[in-house]
Every structure is written in C-alpha cells, then in structure tokens.
C-alpha cells in the first residue's frame, strides 16, 4: 500500500474535518464535510474495498451533505456564532487529552493486509449479518416514520 497515498488522504481528511469544526460559515462547513467524506471513501479504496468506497461516496459524501445543505437553507442559517475562547480552550484540551489517552493504547501488532472483493462482502452481508440487515431496514423505517410524524404539517 502506498504510504504516500495514505499520507495525502489522511492529511486531506484531517484538514477537511478541521474546516468542518472551525469554519464560521456553515455552508463552508457542510461542503468541507462532503469533501472529508469523499476522502474517507478514498481511504476505503486504499483498504481494497471499492464497494464500501462507493457506498460511502453515495451516502456520506453526497446524500448527507445535500440533506444538510437543505436543512441549512430551510433554517436560513449562515454563520455560526463562534464559541467563547474559554470554550475552545476547554474543548481543545478535552480533545487533546482524549487523543493522548487513546494514543498510549494504539499501535496494533503488524499483521498482513488482506482485501476482500465486493462479491465476498455482499455474500457476507446477506449471510453473516442477515439479521442485522433486516434490523437496519426496521431502523430506517422507524427513522422515516419518525421524521414524517415529527415534521408533518399540521392538519387543521
């Protein structure tokens, strides 16, 4: 696997995520989110899983940002009022401690890297995870009905 490819993707992902959490313009943040997810899809390609990459692209890098932009327009949000400096400090500190706390544990042992083709993944999806697959459908249905019920216009 290309070290260079990973480094570039990782850098882009982190940069995109930073824009998402720092930009005061909410539209910029949403677009940056789309780009971040797009690069994450690239990471999945690097992991040898084009199926995952495609779905990541379709759902996370396209559908979700579009939905987000739609809501941004509906609520007429433009700028995000920045939090007070203290808050940035606290949050930055917490995030840092979290990262440092994790860091000590990272560094999994070296193992061989084995990709799996889309067919294999698809077969496993409908065998190993058949029940979760069905449950996910209920989950989506629930979300759909819930969203409809909550957002439906009042019928006088």
């Amino acid at each position, binding site marked *: *696997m*290309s*070290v260079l490819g*990973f480094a570039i993707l990782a850098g882009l992902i982190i940069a995109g*995520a*930073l824009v*998402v*959490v720092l930009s005061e313009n*909410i539209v910029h*943040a949403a677009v940056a989110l789309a780009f971040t*997810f797009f690069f*994450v899809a690239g*990471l*999945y390609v*690097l*992991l040898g*899983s084009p199926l*995952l990459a495609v*779905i*990541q692209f379709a*759902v*996370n890098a396209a559908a*979700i940002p579009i939905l987000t932009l739609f*809501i941004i327009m*509906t*609520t007429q*949000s433009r700028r*995000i*009022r920045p939090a007070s400096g203290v808050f940035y400090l606290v*949050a*930055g500190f*917490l*995030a*840092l401690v*979290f*990262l440092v706390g*994790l860091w000590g544990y*990272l*560094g*999994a042992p070296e*193992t*061989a*890297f*084995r*990709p*799996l083709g889309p067919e294999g*993944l698809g077969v*496993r*999806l409908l065998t*190993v*995870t058949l029940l*979760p697959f069905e449950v*996910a459908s209920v*989950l*989506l249905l629930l*979300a759909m009905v*819930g*969203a409809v019920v*909550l*957002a439906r216009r009042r019928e006088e």
Partner: protein
Amino acid sequence: MITLGHFLALSAVLFAIGLFGVITRRNLIAVLMSVEILLNAAAIAFAATAAYKDPVFFSGQLFALFIMVVAAAELSIGFAILLNVFRHTGSAATDVVEEMRG
C-alpha cells in the same frame, strides 16, 4: 508500510476533532455534522481492522456499512426535531435550546 496502527491513529485524530466540534459548535446543524465525523472515525477504524485482522468474516467492513445506515437514520430524525425547534424559535443556534436547566 502502512499498518493498522496508522489507520487507528487517523481515526483517533478524526474522533478528537469531532469531539472538539461537538463541544464548540454553537449551531445544532454544525453539532450534528461533528457527530457525523465521529461516526466516520469509528467506521474507518472498523473497516481497517477488518482488512488487517478479520480475514475470514470481514465483519468490520459490514459494520462500516451499517454505520452509514445509522448515520442517515440519525440525521433524518435529528433534522426533523431540528425543524420543530426552528418552528418554535426561528433559529438553529444552540442557545435556543437552553431554556430548561437546573
């Protein structure tokens, strides 16, 4: 040579950024976007682990798929509730939901 550790480190950084976003953002939409980052950080860790350590079942990559489903569902309900908030207050800033306290 890229190892699992690299991927996990990336996901950890991404997760930390997401946490930072959840705490500092003062717009509910932006907070939810930060949550999306958190979910993706987890998905990266799952997908990478599957490729490195779970050669038989690859269940981590399946999990990553389900995370996308969950993220979509979460966002749809979240936005529906957000619309209700907006309908009552005319804003999506976090300070409109700070009335109840104590």
